[in-house]
């Protein structure tokens, strides 16, 4: 048999506790009241840092968080031929296996490749998209991919 060892408590609610509660409630109400309109960033893919605004900062946030650098290197120069460089893509793909995709979709071949939506790629494992071809829901959203693509197009 376990000994019955109850905890005793004093009665009475101190005034400072009520004051602190009211103060924090007011701060919360003011914060909520002043932040009621706007748009949340996307949740899918995890990296949502600054993704709403686009630009290099947002792109780098997505690239860092998505783990692109694990294969493509810290400077995104890759380790060819296994992991291609992500520099110099302004004129189309630089690796052989993507030349066909580049010709068929000259404007958005990168978006298709990262999203893994190219139906002409016969190997399903290679159609699952980046990062790391792991398939949804790890894939990036269209908006995030566009931010990354715009950034990659600036890398010489």
């Amino acid at each position: 048999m376990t000994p019955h060892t109850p905890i005793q408590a004093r009665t009475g609610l101190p005034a400072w506790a009520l004051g602190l509660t009211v103060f924090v409630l007011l701060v919360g109400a003011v914060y909520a009241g002043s932040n009621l309109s706007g748009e949340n960033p996307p949740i899918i893919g995890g990296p949502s840092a600054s993704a709403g605004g686009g630009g290099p900062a947002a792109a780098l946030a997505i690239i860092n968080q998505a783990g692109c650098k694990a294969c493509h290197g810290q400077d995104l120069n890759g380790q060819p031929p296994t992991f291609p460089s992500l520099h110099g893509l302004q004129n189309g793909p630089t690796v052989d296996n993507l030349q066909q995709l580049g010709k068929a979709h000259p404007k958005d071949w990168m978006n298709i490749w990262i999203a893994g939506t190219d139906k002409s790629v016969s190997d399903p494992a290679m159609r699952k998209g980046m990062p790391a071809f792991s398939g949804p829901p790890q894939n990036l959203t269209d908006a995030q991919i566009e931010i990354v693509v715009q950034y990659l197009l600036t890398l010489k």
Partner: protein
Amino acid sequence: MTRKLRPYDVPPRRRRALIPASSDSAAALFMVVGVLWLLVATGIGVLAAGERLFPDILKFTFSVPVGSGITVDVSRSTVDAAFLDALVYGWLTNAGIAAILFITPRLTGERLMSDTIANLGLGAWNLAIAAGIALLYVKGASSAGALAEFPLPVKLLALLGLFTVNGVFWRTVLPTRTIGYISLLYFGIGLLAALGLLALATIPNVLSLGATNDQLLWAFTARGIVTYWVLGVTLGTLYYLVPRVARNPLYSGPLAMLAFVGWLGFAGLSAIGALVDPSVPYAVTTIGQAGTLLLLAPTYLAIANMLATIRGRWSLFLSPGVIPLAVAAMTMLAGAALLESVGALRSVQRLTTGTDWGLGVLVISLLGGSTLAFFAFIEHAAPRMLKRAWRGTLMTLGELWATFAGVTLAGLAMILGGLAHGSLLAQGGTPDQLNLTLLGFRLVAAAGLGLAALGGLTLVVNLFTLYTAGEPVEVLALAPQPQDAGAPRGAGALEPAGR
């Protein structure tokens, strides 16, 4: 009735069950398994810190020729997920359930409904968590979503474990009508919430809701597990330990109830704040984030209540034991609550999302606050469960300071590194600049997590020494500890063995 032995009779051998069903056996087993998980979690934590320093070196992908082939992937994302899972579901959940199973009979005055059934829950839960963490490394076996990513069979087994523990708790408490004890209120809600949230996280494994809804559900679950389950069971444990060891009545019962009601509401709101996606109305997410900010109030009220309970017994703080550990835990919890509130603000979120800020706050809250609270629980409960005469030693101080210093270092390094990371990104910093700037922060974080791992190891050594070197006692009249000097001998001072 004793049977008279004939000369050639051999006295019947006493059979010992592999898992004894005696009082506190389930609590003791949950505690021991939890401590082993702590070693695993801190070890993975050190590896996670290493992944940040050497992402290319510590990345392994290899195939195992089993069936159609299994690809094992050890990388930053899988190691981070395994660290949080081992910490929350391995260490903190086992330690939390140990605390619940130890404290509940003492508050209700009734023996636990069944230690054997609780032990079955222990087996199911830990089998599930071990399998779930192993499957994290198998490519394609788990989904993405911290604390909710296990495959369906693993989740079902874990649900069975939690359901069993819930059953034992409620079947013990409800007939006694003693749920009014503040610790039991926290335990009850925490257990129900953990069961409900894990069941919620199972829905995407069964129904196709779409990738975005799956992620939202998992984000809600993960936040709810931290605010309802981990924070709840931590506060419930401290509410038992502090008055018991300080030998003072709780400073204020109504204050404890006010803090409890606040926690009950704001912990749920805070989980809604994790629903960050364009498909969720902005105002709803904001109100949820305000919930995280408001969670500050009940946390601080609870801590203030317990600190006020120690009033007049501050000398306890000077000797190794429960009170220094509890005070350190409350300090960490207060810091983490403040950092979470700041981190919930939209402007801060924009700067810190995708950086190590979030992990740093979790390290302070979970590996700091909750871990130290359960260290305090083990310091109090282990001699009683293992029936050894024992008092705080230098190793207790080692546990305290190694964990406190390690977690502070690691947490602050991650938080400050996260701020630097976000600032550099906002200024359009290059990858080279980022890596160079973050190197120092990552080194300090790795050292801090190493120190925290050492704290966990010290706890194991302390427990081992207690069991092997502590004097076994039939009637556990613990010699008055330095911290007990002068205290009246009451119901908590003497505990007969086997109780």
